[in-house]
């Protein structure tokens, strides 16, 4: 008597890839804009990046319905924080909040693979990377999603950041300039789009620095 398998899953994978790189005084977050299901494309122009606070951006790949619900919960929690503290949440605070929110649903997780990027209280770039249930770490760069397996080794080659376990603690930010980091990101996605069927269409890049926030777009392969 074999165990009966579920014939319905509450989850779906909408594909897509996210990347974030932290610099000395900037942070770059990028994600493709393709949303798929199975072998079909649902949208060529769906943004996976959201601004949660003044200095925090989140990009998430995975099941976009769960991603959207997660974004709404974080936005509501941020409003409450602002009412209580009269100020915006810092990026490290938002990082902890995201971790707690994900673990809250430990036994029915948000199918969301997140990277959080922004500026910390000293103005330096910070990137936090997560798994689906909230385990997180501050890193110098990160990639999540269907193209992550193609992009991460490349970023390791270009940017290898020091281990957070090293003593004395070394800065996790990359020595690259802002424009170099943006070019690197564009290269990552151009390459990933070649081989990953779930990544392509358009690339949305958001850059956060002391002067504020700005967006760039790049066309990617549409096949």
């Amino acid at each position, binding site marked *: 008597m074999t165990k009966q398998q579920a014939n319905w899953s509450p989850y779906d994978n909408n594909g897509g890839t996210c990347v974030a790189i932290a610099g000395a005084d900037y942070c770059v977050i990028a994600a493709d804009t393709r949303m798929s299901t199975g072998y079909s494309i649902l949208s060529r122009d769906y943004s996976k990046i959201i601004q949660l606070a003044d200095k925090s951006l989140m990009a998430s790949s995975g099941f976009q319905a769960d991603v959207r619900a997660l974004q*709404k*919960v974080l936005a*509501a929690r941020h*409003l*409450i924080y602002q*009412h209580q503290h009269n100020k915006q949440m810092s990026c490290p605070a938002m990082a902890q909040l995201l971790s707690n929110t994900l673990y809250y649903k430990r036994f029915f997780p948000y199918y969301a693979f997140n990277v959080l990027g922004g500026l910390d209280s000293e103005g330096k770039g910070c990137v936090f990377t997560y798994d689906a249930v909230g385990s997180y770490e501050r890193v110098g760069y990160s990639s999540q999603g269907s193209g992550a397996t193609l992009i991460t080794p490349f970023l390791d080659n270009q940017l290898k950041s020091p281990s957070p376990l090293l003593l004395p603690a070394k800065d996790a930010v990359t020595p690259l300039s802002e424009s170099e980091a943006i070019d690197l990101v564009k290269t990552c996605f151009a390459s990933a789009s070649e081989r990953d069927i779930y990544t392509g269409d358009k690339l949305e890049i958001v850059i956060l620095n002391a002067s504020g926030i700005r967006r760039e777009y790049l066309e990617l392969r549409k096949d």
Partner: protein
Amino acid sequence: MFRNQYDTDVTTWSPAGRLFQVEYAMEAVKQGSAAIGLRSKTHVVLACVNKASSELSSHQKKIFKVDDHIGVAIAGLTADGRVLSRYMRNECINYSYTYESPLPVGRLVCTQRSWKRPYGVGLLIGGLDESGAHLYYNCPSGNYFEYQAFAIGSRSQAAKTYLERKFETFVDSSRENLIKDALFALRETLQGEKLTSSNCTIAVLGIGEAFSTLDQETVQRLINEFEVVGEDPPAEAAAAPDQSDGAEPGPAAAAADDDDQETPAADQGAAPMDI
């Protein structure tokens, strides 16, 4: 005599059909320091007097942001006011979460519980929705009314008299004039004390403008522009007139001002307060 028998419990009616606990709660509102609200078609201005309990302490916050499009000014038991503000903020957040649109103000105004004591605070709720700007007054009885302009708290009658004279002009008033009228109305409640940015708070919201509290510099500048200073009290001895057009406001309560006899400026001077 009858009043005392039926006033212990909020759930007991008096033979005359009154709930005394609720009426007593409304008295608490009259004890609080004044709060004023006015609205035009496009803006709402909330203003309140900051009364510190002693010179050593700071004043309590009486104007709260509930959402980008809703603000509330309270008079009475400020602690109760804060509880209600927190509840209203939650309601707005939950509504936006579910409907992805701002909570219509009219839905916010019903908040009483029957098994606890009534809230001892009056709320002036200013908000924006699709039909424009609104001002509501919510009293401890749970009733709410919509107003063009209203004042609550101690010495609010003076402000109401001013507002009753001018309210017909508010509908089409500009943002600046609305604030100016709020300052004038606020001055009426001070009755002799000088109006400065340190004893009042002003908040504005409007179409295209999220709720915000004006900072002290802006308020002082507006007070100076509109020459909204305290009036001479009737028969105080040795009043020391202050200049009313932007010069340094003199220390209002110092008796040493008696020595200064400068020519009074066009409008009025402020007399030191005897406390």
